[in-house]
């Protein structure tokens, strides 16, 4: 099949960048989208042109490294699918495809489709954990966790940290990412002791990173390759508001 790719090319953080059009006359519908970019890159190398830089690693939809906005939608048109698992059979012969990096102030572009997502790591470092040093754990069955709670926590814990939520949000907000972690840990009895502090600290770090606010449009939920739900954002709001509003004053 034939595809025309309009790809965002940007040499470095300071380069203004532009769209460059590439013709792909003979791609195989069973290729993944990234494999199509591989093929294109091989040709660019043959022509002596700089290949397109894009992040990728596991290519099975779990590492969260890949991510690009394909035809205006993060990870492309297929729901619950990362770019590496998106196959060309999703498109029609002759389609024109626009490929851009995640765009957000908190995710500065490094080159072409590669962006810096370290803001997510800093949010986790601010509170996205259970403070349990190695060796201090009780028996795994000491605290029962109802199956339904464990399942719900797992729904949230599936987040792969790809950043599609930020990319899709009209406000460049990271609420879904933060909410997934706040919910995952806050739901489990092991994470309860730090629940509200965690929500407060992570949200404060999120705000410091320059992400936007939530306007409840639901775009993130639709873009999330792991189908993490909006209700987790409500859960985070609840934990955060209680954490800030109703917490007893701490001794400074």
């Amino acid at each position: 099949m034939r595809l025309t790719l309009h790809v965002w090319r940007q040499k470095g953080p300071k380069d203004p960048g532009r769209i460059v059009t590439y013709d792909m006359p003979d791609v195989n519908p069973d290729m993944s989208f990234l494999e199509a970019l591989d093929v294109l890159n091989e040709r660019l190398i043959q022509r002596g042109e700089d290949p397109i830089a894009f992040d990728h690693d596991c290519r099975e939809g779990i590492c969260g490294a890949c991510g690009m906005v394909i035809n205006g939608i993060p990870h492309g048109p297929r729901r619950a699918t990362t770019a590496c698992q998106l196959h060309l059979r999703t498109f029609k012969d002759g389609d024109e495809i626009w490929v851009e990096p995640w765009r957000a102030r908190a995710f500065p572009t490094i080159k072409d489709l590669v962006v810096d997502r370290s803001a997510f790591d800093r949010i986790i470092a601010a509170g996205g954990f259970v403070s349990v040093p190695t060796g201090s754990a009780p028996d795994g069955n000491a605290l029962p966790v109802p199956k339904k709670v464990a399942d719900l926590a797992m729904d949230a814990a599936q987040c792969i940290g790809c950043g599609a939520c930020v990319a899709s949000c009209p406000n460049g907000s990271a609420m879904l990412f933060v909410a997934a972690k706040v919910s995952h840990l806050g739901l489990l009895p092991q994470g309860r002791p730090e629940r509200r502090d965690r929500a407060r600290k992570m949200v404060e770090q999120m705000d410091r990173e320059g992400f936007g606010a939530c306007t409840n449009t639901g775009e993130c939920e639709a873009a999330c390759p792991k189908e993490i739900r909006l209700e987790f954002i409500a859960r985070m709001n609840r934990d955060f508001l209680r954490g800030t509003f109703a917490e007893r004053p701490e001794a400074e």
Partner: protein
Amino acid sequence: MSWLGRLYDSTIGKKAIMAVTGVILFAFIIGHLAGNLQILIPDGGARIDAYGRFLHESPVLLWGSRLVLLASVFLHILTSVQLALRNRRARPQPYEFREWREASYASRTMMISGPLIALFVVYHLGHFTTGHFHGSFEPLKVHDNMISGLQVWWASAAYVAAMILLGTHVYHGGWSLFQSLGISHPRYTPLLKKGAAVVAVLITLGYVLIPATIWMGLVR
């Protein structure tokens, strides 16, 4: 920083403020609608004029609610502007190609419907509260002022347009405020969304009924 400062500083805190002030404004919209629908009672305006006088004879109630409303409007606008600026800064470079999948028209245009409604409120206050934009305004003659004011076709049209905007604003705000305050449930939230749509339509229809009937001469 105090907890209040921290709350106000955060995006979620600001959204909570928008939600709470939104609830207050929503309550006003309902009350205001209920009061003004009395124009439809065919008694030559006796009931609605009495309602107007009642409000003015109890200054504590009148100014109390005006103060609460004013504060809510102020906070609602202030936080929304701050959030909107923040949101705009969060994506300095727009996409070349953008597709929407989930975001409703209403949700994407809150920052358009909001300011337009605010403008309309200013006009509306000048029209029926102070009378500056009204050709033949007479204090406390609610019925006569409404009839004469809304028989002007473009005024009526402005009212209808504003109320449609209000409907979209109330639709998205109506369910979204629960989300902002942390209330969500897989069973009830979908109902809430539908409920918000129904209420938004009813409010719009209710308000539109007034200029429409007056302009068509059904109420005199």
